[in-house]
C-alpha cells in the first residue's frame, strides 16, 4: 500500500514538469501561436475544459511571477489558512494550487499536504479526468515542438534576384506571343504593308452567301413562297424527288426483275425439298444406285470434257488422282478395321459377307497398286506389275516434287515453270464442289446469275434476307457422308481411266489425247534432255585437262544459264571503258578505231569512181605517204606531257649561294643545303584527263567566269550544295512562264502608297491570327500546290 501513493505522485510530478516546459515555451512564443493552437483543437474538446486549462495556466503564470522573495511569507500564510480551514470542521475541497516544486509538489515524493486526504486505490485505478485535457496540451506541445524556427528574411540581393526572375518570366511570356508572328513575317515570301488589310475575296461567292440571312420582309415572303412550293433554293436544278424519279428504274424492268426473283425462289425451294427427300430415303440399295449413277455421270462428263477441253480435263484428272491419294492415305480397305474383322468371322458362313470382303480386298489391291510411271518407256509395263510391292507413294513423291538431286534439276525446273498445273495442290473440297456444279450445271447457273444480280442491287430488305439465306445454303457444303461418296466415285473413275490408258498402250497406238499421256510427254523429254546435257559437260571435263586455261574459263560459261551469260557480256562491255583508263598505251587504238567502210551506191564521188576494191589499201598507203614525216600521235603525247608538267605545282627553292658555303661561279650548292631550303609543293589533284589518252584538258581556272560566280556562303547555309540548290532554278522569262516569272521576281515587301504602316497592335495578336496569314501570293501558291497533291496524275 505504501508504494501506490508514490506512483501517483510521480505521475503528478510528470504533469507538472510538462506544464512547466509549456510555460517556458509560452513565454517565448507569440500570442498568435497560442491562438492558433487553440483553434487547432477546438473541434476535439469542449470549450469548457479549454477555458479551465487556460485559467489554470494563467494562474500558474501569475504564481510564478509572484514568488520572488516573498516565498516564506506566503507559505506561512498558507499554513495559517489551512489551520483556519481545519478549524471550521467542514471540509472544503481545496484545489491544490500548483507552484514551484516544493514540499507540496515534489518529484521525489507525493505529499498529500493541503488536501488532507488519503489517496485511495480507486482513485488511482480510475483514469484521471484531467488527463484528457493534458493530452490535448501534449498534442499541442508536440506540434509546437515540431515547428521549426522562423527563417531569416532573405538577403536583399536574393530578394532582388527573385523579383527579377519573376519579372523576366512575365515579360518573356508577354513577348512570346509575338514570336509566331515574327517568324511568320520573317519567313514569308512576300509581305504586303499595311498588314491588316482586308483579305481579298478568295472564297467563292457561295461561301459568302451562305452566311447571309433573310432580313427584309420581301425576302421573307419570297423564301416562304419557295418553301411552300418546295423549290430548290440554293442550288441544283432538280428537286430531290425529281432526281429520285430519274434514278428509279422503269416499270418493265421492275416487273422483269420480280419475275426472275420468283422463279429463282421457286427453284430454290424445289431443290431444297428434293434434297431433303433424298436424304430421308433409308434404302441402301437406292443410295448405291444413286452413287453409281453419279459416277457414271461424272465419267461421261469427263469424257466430254476431254474431247472439248483437254487442259481442263487434265486438271479434272488430277483432282481425281488427288482424291485417290487421299483415299489411300486413310488405309480404309486394309481389312484391318472393326467392320472388316467382324466380316472376316462371318465370311465363313455368309456369302454376302464374303462378297463384301472380296470387294474390300480388290479395292485394297487397287489402291496399293504401283502407279504407272508414264515417263518410262513402254516396256516398263511388265515391271509395273512386279513393282506392286513397292509402295506407290514413293514413286509419286519423286515425280511430283522435285527431289534435291542436283543432277536432275537442270531441265526440270524449266518444265515445272512451264506447267503450273502440276504444282497446284487441289483440295478435296474444291473437287467436290465442282462435281456438284457439274451435276446441276444449268439450274445452278441460273441461280447464280440471279444471285449475282441480287447482290448487285440491295434495295428491299426482303430481298436481302432471302439472299442471305440462299447464300448460306449454297456456300456451306454438306460434308461427312457426301464427301466420302464423292471420293469413292472419283476413285472408281480414276481406275477406269487408267485401264483405258493401259489398253491404248497395249494396242501400240499413240495415245490421241489422254491427259495422262500428255502429261508424261514433257517429262520424258525433260529427262532425255537432262541426259543430253549431261553428256557434253562430262566430255568437257575430260578434255579440260588437255586444254588451255583460257578455254577452261570459257567452256563452263557456255553451260551457265542465259541470264548469267548476259551479265558477263555486260561486264565485258564495261571493261573496255576501264581499260581505257590506262593512259597512253591505248591511244593508238583510240585513234585507229576500227572503221567500217561505208558502201552506199552513191558515196563514191564520180571522179574517183573508177577505182577498184583495193582502194582501201591504196588509200592507206597514200595516207602513210602523206604523213610519213609527222607522227601525229607522238606529237600529241609530247604535248600532253608538257601540259602535265606545266600544270604540276613547282617546288620553291630558297637556297642562297654563299651562305654557309663558298659561293661563286662554277660552285654548285651542296645537296644537303638544297634539300634543307627546298619547300616541296603539295601534290596536285589528279588531272581531269588522266585517264583520257587522246585528250588534254586545261587545268587553268577561268578567272573571268569565276568573277561572276558567288564566292561566299550567305547566312543560313553552311554547305555549298545547300546554297546551290536554292539558286538552281533560273528566274528569267526565257525559262519560265509569265506567271511563274512574276512569282519568282515578286518583291519581298510591298507597301501600299498612301497607307500608314502601323505597328501590329497588342489586341490583334491573340484574337485574330487570320490577319497574319501568309500573304496572298504565297497563299495562292499553296492552294495551287495543294491542288496538285489532291489530284495526283496517274500514269498507268
Amino acid at each position: 500500500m505504501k508504494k501506490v501513493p508514490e506512483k501517483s505522485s510521480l505521475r503528478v510530478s510528470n504533469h507538472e514538469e510538462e506544464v512547466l516546459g509549456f510555460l517556458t515555451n509560452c513565454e517565448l512564443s507569440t500570442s498568435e501561436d497560442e491562438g492558433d493552437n487553440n483553434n487547432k483543437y477546438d473541434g476535439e474538446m469542449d470549450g469548457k475544459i479549454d477555458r479551465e486549462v487556460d485559467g489554470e495556466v494563467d494562474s500558474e503564470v501569475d504564481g510564478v511571477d509572484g514568488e520572488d522573495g516573498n516565498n516564506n511569507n506566503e507559505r506561512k500564510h498558507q499554513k495559517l489558512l489551512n489551520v483556519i480551514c481545519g478549524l471550521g470542521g467542514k471540509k472544503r475541497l481545496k484545489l491544490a494550487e500548483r507552484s514551484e516544486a516544493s514540499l507540496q509538489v515534489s518529484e521525489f515524493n507525493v505529499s498529500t499536504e493541503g488536501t488532507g486526504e488519503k489517496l485511495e486505490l480507486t482513485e488511482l485505478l480510475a483514469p484521471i479526468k484531467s488527463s484528457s485535457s493534458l493530452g490535448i496540451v501534449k498534442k499541442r506541445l508536440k506540434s509546437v515542438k515540431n515547428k521549426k524556427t522562423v527563417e531569416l528574411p532573405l538577403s536583399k540581393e536574393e530578394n532582388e534576384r527573385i523579383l527579377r526572375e519573376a519579372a523576366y518570366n512575365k515579360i518573356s511570356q508577354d513577348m512570346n506571343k509575338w514570336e509566331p508572328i515574327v517568324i511568320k513575317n520573317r519567313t514569308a515570301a512576300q509581305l504586303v504593308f499595311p498588314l491588316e488589310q482586308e483579305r481579298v475575296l478568295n472564297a467563292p461567292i457561295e461561301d459568302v452567301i451562305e452566311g447571309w440571312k433573310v432580313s427584309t420582309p420581301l425576302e421573307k415572303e419570297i423564301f416562304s413562297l419557295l418553301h411552300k412550293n418546295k423549290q430548290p433554293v440554293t442550288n441544283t436544278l432538280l428537286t430531290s424527288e425529281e432526281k429520285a424519279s430519274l434514278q428509279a428504274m422503269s416499270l418493265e424492268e421492275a416487273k422483269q426483275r420480280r419475275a426472275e426473283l420468283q422463279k429463282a425462289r421457286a427453284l430454290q425451294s424445289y431443290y431444297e425439298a428434293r434434297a431433303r427427300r433424298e436424304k430421308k430415303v433409308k434404302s441402301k440399295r437406292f443410295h448405291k444406285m444413286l452413287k453409281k449413277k453419279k459416277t457414271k455421270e461424272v465419267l461421261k462428263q469427263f469424257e466430254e470434257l476431254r474431247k472439248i477441253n483437254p487442259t481442263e480435263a487434265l486438271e479434272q484428272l488430277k483432282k481425281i488422282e488427288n482424291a485417290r491419294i487421299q483415299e489411300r492415305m486413310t488405309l480404309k480397305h486394309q481389312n484391318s478395321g472393326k467392320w472388316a474383322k467382324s466380316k472376316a468371322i462371318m465370311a465363313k458362313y455368309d456369302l454376302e459377307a464374303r462378297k463384301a470382303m472380296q470387294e474390300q480386298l480388290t479395292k485394297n489391291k487397287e489402291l496399293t497398286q504401283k502407279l504407272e510411271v508414264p515417263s518410262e518407256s513402254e516396256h516398263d509395263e511388265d515391271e509395273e506389275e512386279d513393282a506392286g510391292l513397292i509402295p506407290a507413294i514413293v514413286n509419286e513423291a519423286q515425280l511430283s516434287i522435285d527431289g534435291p538431286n542436283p543432277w536432275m534439276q537442270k531441265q526440270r525446273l524449266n518444265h515445272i515453270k512451264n506447267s503450273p498445273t502440276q504444282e497446284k495442290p487441289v483440295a478435296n473440297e474444291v473437287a467436290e464442289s465442282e462435281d456438284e456444279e457439274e451435276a446441276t450445271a444449268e439450274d445452278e447457273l441460273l441461280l447464280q446469275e440471279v444471285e449475282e444480280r441480287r447482290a448487285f442491287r440491295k434495295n428491299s430488305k426482303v430481298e436481302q434476307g432471302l439472299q442471305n439465306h440462299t447464300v448460306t445454303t449454297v456456300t456451306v457444303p454438306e460434308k461427312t457422308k457426301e464427301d466420302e461418296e464423292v471420293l469413292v466415285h472419283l476413285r472408281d473413275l480414276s481406275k477406269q481411266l487408267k485401264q483405258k490408258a493401259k489398253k491404248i498402250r497395249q494396242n501400240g497406238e499413240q495415245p490421241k489425247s489422254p491427259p495422262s499421256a500428255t502429261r508424261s510427254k514433257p517429262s520424258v523429254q525433260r529427262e532425255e534432255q537432262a541426259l543430253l546435257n549431261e553428256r557434253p559437260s562430262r566430255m568437257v571435263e575430260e578434255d579440260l585437262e588437255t586444254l588451255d586455261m583460257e578455254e577452261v574459263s570459257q567452256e563452263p560459261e557456255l553451260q551457265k544459264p542465259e541470264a548469267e551469260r548476259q551479265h558477263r557480256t555486260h561486264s565485258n562491255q564495261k571493261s573496255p571503258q576501264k581499260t581505257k583508263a590506262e593512259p597512253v598505251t591505248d591511244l593508238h587504238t583510240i585513234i585507229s578505231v576500227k572503221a567500217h567502210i561505208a558502201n552506199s551506191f552513191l558515196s563514191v564521188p564520180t571522179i574517183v569512181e573508177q577505182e577498184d576494191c583495193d582502194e582501201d589499201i591504196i588509200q592507206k598507203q597514200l595516207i602513210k605517204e602523206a604523213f610519213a614525216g609527222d607522227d601525229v600521235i607522238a606529237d600529241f603525247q609530247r604535248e600532253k606531257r608538257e601540259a602535265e608538267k606545266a600544270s604540276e605545282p613547282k617546288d620553291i627553292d630558297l637556297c642562297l649561294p654563299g651562305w654557309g658555303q663558298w659561293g661563286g661561279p662554277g660552285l654548285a650548292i651542296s645537296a644537303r643545303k638544297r634539300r634543307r631550303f627546298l619547300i616541296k609543293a603539295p601534290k596536285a589533284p589528279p588531272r581531269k584527263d588522266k585517264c583520257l589518252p587522246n585528250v588534254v584538258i586545261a587545268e587553268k581556272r577561268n578567272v573571268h567566269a569565276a568573277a561572276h560566280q558567288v564566292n561566299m556562303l550567305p547566312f543560313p547555309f553552311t554547305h555549298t550544295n545547300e546554297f546551290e540548290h536554292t539558286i538552281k532554278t533560273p528566274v528569267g522569262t526565257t525559262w519560265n512562264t509569265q506567271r511563274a516569272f512574276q512569282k519568282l521576281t515578286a518583291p519581298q515587301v510591298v507597301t501600299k502608297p498612301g497607307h500608314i504602316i502601323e505597328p501590329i497592335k497588342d489586341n490583334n495578336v491573340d484574337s485574330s491570327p487570320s490577319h497574319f496569314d501568309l500573304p496572298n501570293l504565297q497563299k495562292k501558291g499553296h492552294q495551287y500546290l495543294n491542288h496538285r497533291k489532291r489530284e495526283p496524275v496517274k500514269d498507268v
Partner: protein
Amino acid sequence: MEAAPKPSSKAQVKTKGKKQPLRYWEGKADEASLLPSSLTAPDSVIVTKRKREDGTQPRGSQVSKRPKQTQRFKSKQNQKNLKSKHNQKHLQLKKDLRPNQKQELRLNHTLSGAQDPFPGPAPVSENAVKKFQRSSKFVKKHPLKFVTEDKLKAATDEEEETSVRAAQAELLLSEEPGFLEGEDGEDTSTICQADIAEAVDIASAAKHFDLNLHQFGPYRLNYSRTGRHLALCGRRGHVATFDWITKKLMCEINVMEAVRDIRFLHSETLFAVAQKRWLHIYDNQGIELHCVRRCDRITRLEFLPFHFLLATASETGFLTYLDVSVGKIVASLAARAGRLDVMTQNPYNAIIHLGHSNGTVSLWCPAVKEPLVKILCHRGGVRSVAVDSSGMYMATSGLDHQVKIFDLRGKFQPLTSRALPQGAGHLAFSQRGLLAGGMGDVVNIWRAQGQGSFLSLDQPYLTHRLPGHVHGLQFCPFEDVLGAGHSRGFSSILVPGAGEPNFDGLESNPYRSHKQRQEWEVKALLEKIPAELIDLDPRNLGEIDVISLEQKKKEQIERLGFDPEAKAPFQPKQKKKGRSSTANLVKRKTKVKDQKQREKVRQSQQQQDQQQKKKKKKLTPPLSTGPLPSALDRFKR
C-alpha cells in the same frame, strides 16, 4: 429571321417541282452514272477531250470518273432519301480517288447550281513536270538549321511550281517530226530528190531548187537563225542574200575580192563577209557598214547569237572574238597551230571548235588564252567539224578518210567512226540530229536508226549528187531542207525530218514582222550574255566558286589570327583534389581524342560496308535468277 437554307436542310424540304432544263453536262452526268458501261462515244466527247492530252489513263476509267464525282455530291445531299446501289458504289470508289472531298465539294458548289464538270486547274502529268525540273531533290546529309531548311523548302516549292506551270503551258498538239520511210526492204537512200519533191505538197516541193551560178566559183552559204533568209558567197566575190522561201532577193553585190565565208549576224539585216584582206560587214541592202581591219585574212566565221560575238578564224592562226553589239574585239587568241580553216561552234555552250592540221580539235572560249580541251581525233588533218544542237556529240572528218563522232560530255571519246571512200570534206548537223556529210560532189545524210538510238553511220538515210563539188553545207533551221553550196552554185535539198517542227515564236520566229524583229532585237540585246561567261559547262555559273571561297576564308584567318568558325579544341576542366594532375589531363584529352577517332573509324566502316553491299547487290541479281545452289553442287561434274 430565316436563314437561307443550306444544302443539307434543303434536301428534306424538296418535293417534286417543275422540272428545270438540264445543263448538258448535268444530264450526261446522270446518264453516265446510271449506265456507266454503256457510254457511247458521242456522249463522252466532252469528258474525254481533256483526258486525251495526257493520254495516260485508259479512256473507260476516265469517262466514269467525272460523273461519279457529281453523283457523289448529290448523294451527300440526300443520303436519306436515296439509297441506290449506284450511289454506294461510287462512294466506295471515290474514297481512294480523292482524299479531301470537302474542298472538292465546295469548289463544285456554285450559286446557280451548275456544276463545273472539270473543277480546278487542268491536271498535269508527272512526266511532263519532270521534263521541266532542273535539279534532283536535295538530299540532307546532316541536320540543318530551321532557317536553312525553310529556305531549302521554299526553293524546292518554287521549283516545283515553276515546273508545273511550265508543264501546263507546254504546247499542245505540236507538230510531230517524221522521217522518210521506204517500202519493204527499200533503201531510203535510193530515193532521189525528184521523187521526194513529187510526193510532197507544192509548198514543200518549192523548197527544192538549184541555183546555177557557175561563174563565181564555189559557194558558201549561211541561213539566218530564223531559217528564213539565206546568204550566199561565191569565192570570186559574189555575195547575195535573199528570202529563200519566197526567193525574194535582198541584195546582190560583187565585192571584187576573194570571199572566204559569209555569216548573218544576229538578224538578217546584217551580215559579215570574210574577204581576202579584211572582215566586212554589210546590211541587207548590200551597203558596206564596217570594215574591220583588226580581223584580217579571215577564213571562217561563226556567230554566237546569245553573246553577240562574231568569232573569226584567220590564216595567221588567230581566233578573234568580235563583239558586234559594241564593236569591240573581246579576245584574240593565238591558236599556235598554223592556218585555221576548220571552225564550228557548240550551240549548247558557245564554245568554238577549231580543227587543226595535226589531227586535233581544240575547244576555245574567249576568257582563256589556251585551248580548254584538245582532242586528238584523226591521224591526218581535220577537214571539218560539226556539233549537234544538244551539244553532246561532235562529228569530225579527217584526211584519213574517217568520220568520227565524239562524246562531248566530259570524256571526249569517240563513239563511232566510219571510213568513207573519199572522206567527208564538210559536215553539218541538223536540229534534230541528222548528220550531213559532203564528199566530193555527193552529199550523204545519216540518221539514228530507230527511236531514241544514237546516230549510226552504217547506212545513209539519203544521198544526193550535186552538179559540183561541195563547198558548204548547212541545214536550214525549222525546215526540212539542207542547203549545199557547191562549185556550180547552190542547191536546196529536201531532207524529211531534219528540222525542228516547232519553233519558239519569241525566240526565232520565221514569220516575224519588221516590228517583231525590232522588239526581239532589243530584248536580245538586253539579255546579251557577257563573253566571259562562256565555259565548257554553262551550269558552272550556278555553283559556288569554292576556290575563292576557301581563299577568302584563309585570308580572314590570316587577318584575324584565328579561325572564327573553328571549333575550340578540347580543354579539360580544372578539377580539385589532385585530379587535375598533368597525367590526368593528358589522359582526359586522349580519351576525348580517341572517342572522336573511334567515331570517324565507325563512320568510314559503315561507308565501306554500304559500298560493299551496293557492289554485292549489283553482282547478285543475275545469280538470283537461277536455282538456289545446293550443297551437292560441289560434286557436280
